[in-house]
């Protein structure tokens, strides 16, 4: 298998933690809230899922529990940032620190233990195609994430729910004036984002690299937040961005497999460097950000 085939086969799985967390953050930001605690929410989801799967609870229960726990932690953020109108940057950082701390605390006695991942399901016919065939052999969570991406795109494009979320994010005062419960809508969005971050963490810990190590999220929550900016708040572009980062994070192993002499630290920092560069390129187009951006992002709502 050459490097390209290797990357194509692994890209979607590697992209899934980014994708799930970024889709959650997309909904949160569309509602006008900036939750910077994604890294911590993912870390919490990861440890919860790992513990449950390790003790034989199964992947499904693991994912559900991870989603619930991260959603609950994100509700703490919602109460502090939305009800108490605290600075969203500070509240998000605090949730991030708390989530990572809880993750390390709970995961202490599971350090370096492993669990079994999930089998890959091949899509008939497609998976036998040359070169790109690997794209169509994926575990069930990847398939669900792809369906979820489509669903979120459809919600924002066709449904009234999507319309309400966008309205609350663009002009909360007006949304309030025509009778929408702004704080409630935002809280629900934050909880959804928390749940997705929990799933993302769970996937990273019990499917993608089913081995517990403290700090295993390794900045992926932050990259997910950056992905929302890369995607200029559009579902399709966020998906493409997640695939890009999936591919980038596989370049390390791919390069080593082909025997290239590159310091491993450079390969490890590749995702971060790519984030910085792409962030610079996309953000420089101020008009684009303004056009697709969320007008009230990060501002507390007060009637």
């Amino acid at each position, binding site marked *: 298998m050459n490097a390209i085939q290797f990357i194509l086969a692994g890209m979607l799985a590697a992209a899934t933690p980014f994708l799930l967390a970024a889709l959650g953050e997309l909904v949160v930001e569309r509602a006008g809230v900036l939750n910077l605690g994604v890294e911590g929410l993912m870390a919490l989801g990861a440890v919860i899922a790992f513990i449950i799967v390790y003790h034989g609870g199964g992947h499904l229960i693991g994912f559900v529990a991870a989603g619930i726990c991260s959603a609950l932690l994100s509700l703490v953020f919602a109460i502090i940032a939305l009800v108490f109108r605290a600075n969203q940057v500070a509240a998000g950082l605090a949730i991030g620190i708390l989530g990572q701390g809880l993750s390390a605390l709970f995961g202490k006695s599971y350090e370096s233990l492993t669990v079994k991942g999930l089998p890959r399901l091949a899509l008939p016919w497609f998976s036998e195609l040359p070169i790109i065939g690997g794209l169509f052999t994926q575990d069930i969570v990847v398939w669900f994430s792809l369906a979820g991406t489509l669903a979120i795109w459809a919600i924002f494009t066709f449904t*009234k729910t999507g*319309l*309400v979320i*966008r*309205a609350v994010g*663009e*002009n909360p*005062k*007006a*949304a*309030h*004036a*025509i*009778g*929408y419960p702004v704080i409630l809508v935002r809280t629900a969005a934050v909880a959804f984002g928390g749940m997705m971050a929990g799933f993302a963490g769970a996937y990273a810990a019990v499917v993608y690299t089913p081995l517990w190590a403290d700090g295993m999220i390794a900045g992926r929550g932050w990259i997910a937040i950056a992905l929302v900016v890369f995607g200029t708040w559009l579902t399709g572009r966020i998906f493409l961005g997640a695939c890009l980062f999936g591919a980038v994070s596989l370049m390390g192993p791919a390069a080593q497999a082909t025997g290239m002499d590159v310091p491993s630290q450079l390969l490890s920092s590749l995702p971060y460097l790519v984030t910085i560069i792409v962030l610079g390129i996309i953000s420089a187009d*101020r*008009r684009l950000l*303004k*056009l697709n951006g969320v*007008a009230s992002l990060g501002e507390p709502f007060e*009637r």
Partner: protein
Amino acid sequence: MSQPLLSLRGISKSYGAIRANQEIDLDVAPRSIHAILGENGAGKSTLMKLIYGVEQPDDGTAAWKGEPLSLASPAEARHRGIGMVFQHFSLFETLTVVENIQLVVPGRKAELTKRIRTLGRDFGLEVDPFAHVHALSVGERQRVEIIRCLMTNPKLLILDEPTSVLPPQLVNKLFDTLRRLRDGGVSILFISHKLEEIRAICDRATILRGGRVTGNVDPREHDAHDLARMMIGRDMPEPIPALPLSGGERRLEIIGLDYTPDDPFAVPLSSISLTVRASEILGIAGISGNGQSELSALISGETVLKREQADRIFMMGRDVGTLDPAARRELGFAFVPEDRLGRGAVPEMSLLLNSLLTAHPLKLLKHGLINRARAAAFTNDCIRQYDVRTRGPDAEAGSLSGGNLQKFIVGREIMLAPKLLFVAQPTWGVDVGAASAIRQRLIALRNAGMAILVISEELEELFELSDFIQVLHHGTLSPPLLAVNTKPEEIGRYMIGAEPAGEKASA
């Protein structure tokens, strides 16, 4: 009078220490156009929010067709048959017209689109259902708001200052629509502070002052003076006369300025030209959203031109297009922006620190450190000379009322002794007394030789202040019109773009 449609008894509402409404009684008859008259801060908007369920009263009862009524939310109000058109529109710019309507009215897109078109035809409210709201003019946005209300089949329609965004011609068109609606069985609550309009269209008027009802009359039976007395508690102040024009030196000159903003929601400007001379007031008329904020920022220096665009904006004879606000101020420019909180002043800072914002060159600093004694003296002077009602220089700017903060900012800018003063919306949200004090001060400064540029939505104000008036519409500016020789209708034609800029000059 038959049984009232809506009847309020003893409604009160306080925000902290501010008692916005006290013991309000109000009866709205079926099939009537009922005015709520009062100046800024009299409690009109609060009352409407209570009726529409956006806020809940602290005290009092309401009845709807004789039945007790309690409104916990706008959804409930709509369900009962109450609709509202807001003063600052509650529309979403990034959504289309039909999406905006979908947020309030149940139904599928296709069906809503059809109803929007029908209503538009029947009531003279034509608008493209698929247009994005940010691309609409202010008048069109108001139509969307009214259509959105009408689609809920209201029995009572509340309009908050609906004419403030319309040129005179469109005001008449709106009045036609309102009369048609009344004849169709809808009652209308018409909020305004413009006396003539109320006399023209309303058959009942309830007058508010300081949060209380001070009159309940048939406006057609009273002249404007009577109504004004009920509204402000005394006669309207008389304007002071201006000295004749003297043709002084050019302090601000803009020549053929074209500007395309970075912000996709902003209005591009094209071939803007204007001149303001010493001892002269130039007024810029037009409805907000036609390029006013873009033009202000270009004049103040908050937006700077690219280097390629030389020789477009001159102040005191110097090309200032690429200079930042601080550099323009050094040339003798001062500016009162239209938004006071967060731009003209920092709400969380004391008045003393807010003085420093623009007055720091008046030796309020020493070796880079703030000289508190001098800053306090400056602030105290400003508070005294401009009659700012406040606890003192340590009060936070955010704790002042709109009128008092405006007096402070106007005072601060005038105390800089500028050669060129630019005031945007001098009396927005300011009570009548403070507004007339500000206008008199501006005329006195003009007489003393200052060049003054005023942007305002209020035509009456511009006629009172200005020597020349130019109209801003769709990012273009009309030729200057000598105010004493011009009728409001002429300005109005420019405001709706019926007479494109330049056409009249060539005709």
